[in-house]
């Protein structure tokens, strides 16, 4: 790098493809993947399913990104940002797939020039979001975030391992890529659960309390929505009820190793039988969306 052409030298020797902003692009994961929807599959239901899984990732990425510059150590700032970036990447692919298979999934409020992923993320109202309620909760302290990441990571990894066999080629490819990412998320959370559980008396208490706060949202993860059930029968989706024993098994092993009791806090009831998959959320969700969406909605004619 010479001084005389400081700027020019910066553009030299760079392999731009894939090395800038790790996790910001997603074209590669789907390179060479067919985009045809199997003929017998209901496109509206497939789109709805992509939105469910996409919203889980989007909303959790939003919460995890709140840690950036607030983590217990700089190395952990970097790690949590990586996890948030992985989930954000999954969300973008899933929301894009939803818009691709069923254009009517786009909210009417979204301006035409906005891509599907942003139309869905920024121009839907709360009742149209289909994420499980666990991911929308405020982050809490580091132990609570670790507890949520552990449970969510175990669950989504088990789900994506099966989803890799989906008859929808795009879902299958997204899941195959996601499995590697989620295995890392789960392990990262498990490593921290061990350290907090078997660290100091104080950390053990925080970890126990964090698990207690996350536990009421666990049952919902395994409660199928009718769309999930039907698409699972069609070989496209995964029936979350089938994941219970796998997830329980992994969680039990981590909890035993960490010397932590299995929480006994009761499941959070649904509202009139409706929960996240039906678009009925807990109160923190509205604030999360207000923050996430307000710039995009304040400037509908803008391009970013």
């Amino acid at each position, binding site marked *: 790098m010479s001084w005389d052409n400081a700027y020019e030298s910066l553009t030299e020797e760079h*392999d731009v493809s*894939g090395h800038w902003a790790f996790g910001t692009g997603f074209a590669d994961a789907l390179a060479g993947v067919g985009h045809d929807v199997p003929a017998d599959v209901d496109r509206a239901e497939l789109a709805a399913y992509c939105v469910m899984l996409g919203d889980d990732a989007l909303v959790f990425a939003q919460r995890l990104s709140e840690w950036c510059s607030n983590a217990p150590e700089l190395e952990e700032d970097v790690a949590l940002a990586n996890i948030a970036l992985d989930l954000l990447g999954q969300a973008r692919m899933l929301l894009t797939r939803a818009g691709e298979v069923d254009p009517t999934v786009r909210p009417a409020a979204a301006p035409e020039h906005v891509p599907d992923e942003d139309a869905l993320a920024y121009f839907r109202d709360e009742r149209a979001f289909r994420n499980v309620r666990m991911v929308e909760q405020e982050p809490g302290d580091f132990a609570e975030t670790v507890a949520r990441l552990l449970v969510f990571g175990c669950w989504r990894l088990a789900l994506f391992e099966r989803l890799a066999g989906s008859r929808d080629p795009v879902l299958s490819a997204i899941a195959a890529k996601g499995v590697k990412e989620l295995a890392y998320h789960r392990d990262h959370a498990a*490593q921290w659960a061990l350290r907090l559980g078997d660290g100091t008396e104080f950390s053990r208490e925080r970890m126990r309390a964090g698990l207690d706060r996350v536990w009421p949202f666990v049952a919902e993860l395994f409660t199928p929505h009718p769309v999930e059930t039907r698409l699972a029968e069609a070989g496209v989706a995964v029936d979350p009820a089938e994941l219970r024993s796998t997830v329980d098994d992994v969680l039990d092993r981590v909890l035993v190793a960490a010397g932590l009791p299995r929480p006994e806090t009761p499941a959070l009831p649904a509202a009139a039988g409706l929960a996240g998959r039906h678009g009925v959320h807990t109160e923190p969700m509205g604030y999360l969306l207000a923050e996430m969406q307000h710039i995009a909605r304040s400037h509908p004619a803008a391009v970013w």
Partner: protein
Amino acid sequence: MNETRSAWPLWEVFVRGKRGLNHVHVGSLHAPDAEMAVRNARDLYTRRNEGVSIWVVPAAEITASSPDEKDPFFAPSGDKVYRHPTFYAIPDDVPHL
């Protein structure tokens, strides 16, 4: 809280850029133990896919050669070994480091 007790030790990080190359020293980081050091190294030093394999070694466990006549100059107390020899030169053929 006692800061000295909670400070994490320093680890030296070595990355294999691609198959067929040696592990090369890329820098250091703090971590409470070896497993977390590997995780942190993956996030910090390979987040642009710069490597296929990582080694971490406690900085305090590294023994360096005594300075000898090949060094341009050297400490009079040449028997003392400095503990933190990080950021060794990286060969040009290791990509993206």
